[in-house]
């Protein structure tokens, strides 16, 4: 039995560079890590993830290094003592990887205007039509809770990043208190923003447990089920290596099944 019902589409990414942008709390790191995991398990080309989060000191994609490397993903992030630094460390390898355009490179761009400034310093390395710049929207966060706020926040980011958005990701959530209603609310908000800006709604993402309770055909966009990686110290999840492996097996099984279908 297909665990999520039939008829929905997984996201399809065609460019070599995918920059995921969003304010803190948008869930952009969780989305970036999950998209990387999805691509690593479904594609046979080199996958890399780079942490451009210069703003958030905790809960960054750097935390997911062990899991990502276990999946064969190249992780570009500061190591050693600098792993924990609240300093604006922008690794030179990131520019190199953007210019090379080999396989797929997912960029986890730090929250908000300040974070996207890091992207701005790299904007000349981006070649038009060869990248996606995706805005992650969570309708339950201040500054992206209605259409006007979303447009204002996105335009501020575009100015500092010196790049134009190419699509929207709907990722409304309240972590453990996410409900189907919140997903629908977020889907509507993201659809409206996408329509006004004439951008595609590239995908909707949400925890698998919530998606299982819903009819996914109501979403006219691809769907990315999420497995939480960014956990608090008292939460149990896939953070333990054993659980990572079993989750990987399960995903591989699902992917294989999907291709067979």
């Amino acid at each position: 039995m297909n665990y999520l019902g039939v008829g929905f589409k997984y996201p399809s990414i065609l460019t070599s560079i995918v920059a995921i942008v969003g304010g803190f709390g948008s869930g952009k790191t969780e989305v970036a890590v999950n998209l990387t995991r999805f691509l690593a398990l479904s594609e046979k080309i080199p996958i890399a993830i780079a942490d451009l989060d210069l703003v958030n000191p905790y809960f960054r994609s750097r935390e997911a290094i062990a899991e990502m490397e276990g999946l064969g993903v190249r992780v570009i992030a500061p190591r050693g003592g600098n792993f924990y630094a609240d300093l604006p460390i922008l690794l030179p390898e990131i520019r190199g990887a953007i210019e090379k355009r080999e396989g797929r490179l997912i960029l986890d761009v730090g929250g908000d205007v300040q974070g996207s400034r890091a992207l701005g310093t790299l904007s000349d390395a981006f070649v038009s039509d060869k990248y996606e710049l995706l805005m992650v929207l969570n309708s339950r966060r201040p500054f992206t809770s209605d259409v006007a706020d979303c447009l204002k926040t996105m335009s501020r980011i575009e100015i500092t990043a010196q790049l134009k958005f190419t699509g929207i990701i709907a990722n409304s959530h309240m972590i453990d208190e996410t409900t189907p209603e919140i997903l629908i609310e977020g889907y509507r908000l993201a659809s409206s923003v996408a329509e006004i800006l004439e951008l595609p709604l590239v995908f909707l993402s949400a925890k698998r447990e919530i998606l299982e309770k819903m009819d996914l055909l109501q979403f006219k966009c691809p769907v990315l089920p999420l497995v939480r990686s960014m956990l608090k110290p008292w939460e149990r999840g896939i953070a333990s290596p054993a659980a990572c492996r079993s989750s990987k097996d399960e995903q591989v099984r699902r992917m294989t099944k999907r291709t067979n279908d």
Partner: protein
Amino acid sequence: MAKKLMKGNEAIGEAAICAGATNYFAYPITPQSEVAEYLSRRLPEVGGVFVQAESEVAVGYMLFGAASTGKRVFTTSSSPGISLMQEALSYMAGAHLPVVLVNIMRGGPGLGGILPAQSDYFQATKGGGHGDYHIIVLAPSSVQEAVDLMILAFDLADKYRTPVMLIGDGMIGQMMESVEFPEQYQTPPSPKEWALTGAVGRKPVVIKSLFLDPIALEKNSLELAKKYEIIKADEVRYELYKVNDKNKLLIFAYGTMARICQTAIDELEEEGIGVGLFRPISLFPFPQKEIYREVIKPNIKALLTVEMSVGQMIEDIERCIVGQKPLGFYGRTGGIVPSPDEVKAAVKKQLGLGK
């Protein structure tokens, strides 16, 4: 009001506005800089003021001056910044000034690191500044509780004319959780009779901590001491988790450390090991009688204190339990957070189970 998803630091900022506190003085420091970032956007919307000071030393005296006007004033910082404010904190306590401070603790001593810690317990509860004084110290374990306690902090500061500190490890500031704010935002309180509001039509008032006459200085210290006795009697706050008459062991932990212990307790319960948790919410006043009452229960064989420090709150626990039961300690420091597995192992060791 609909629930929102907020980072602890943002929620603390919004809670202050909710309490009618619109005078904010601060200097940025990880892991609490988002409070200033949030309030720099939010305070102008409510006619408030955010002054970014040249240092935390300056913040301390901006608070002193602004609090003297009777308005609700506050600051937020992290460990090294709070250290720089200690002199002014002693002055404000001595001058009976209501002010709210937030310490989102990071690893120390010195510049330390930026990851979560609870190693400023001594500084907060025993007075990092000089003189016979205390401040009220409140320790939330969730973002919602940080909001509730932040609002309470302003009420307690006004009620007792004392500095109040909200103390959270870095996690409290950085983590995201859903929160709800009261429907009704408070309007800033009207001027108080002790406040400096211009002496038109009344006698001038003086706010100071300098008393060269020893009789006057002793009188001020005794007034403070009397105030602390009332606070100790009326303002103790704590929470019990899975405490019952079958548990063999009682854990003491506060802040997010208590939530890690809860996960450990839930999992130990499945293994048939009954453990309860005593979570002090007010660190000053410390729940001394309440802890003693739980500890002397006949089913309790052993005690364990768990902290993100090398052992600070444990000294208060020792004082409360007066040697009644064997007390163990487990702690990690420097920004390392004990895992539920480490807590489980420490519980088993303290109970003499397994290795």
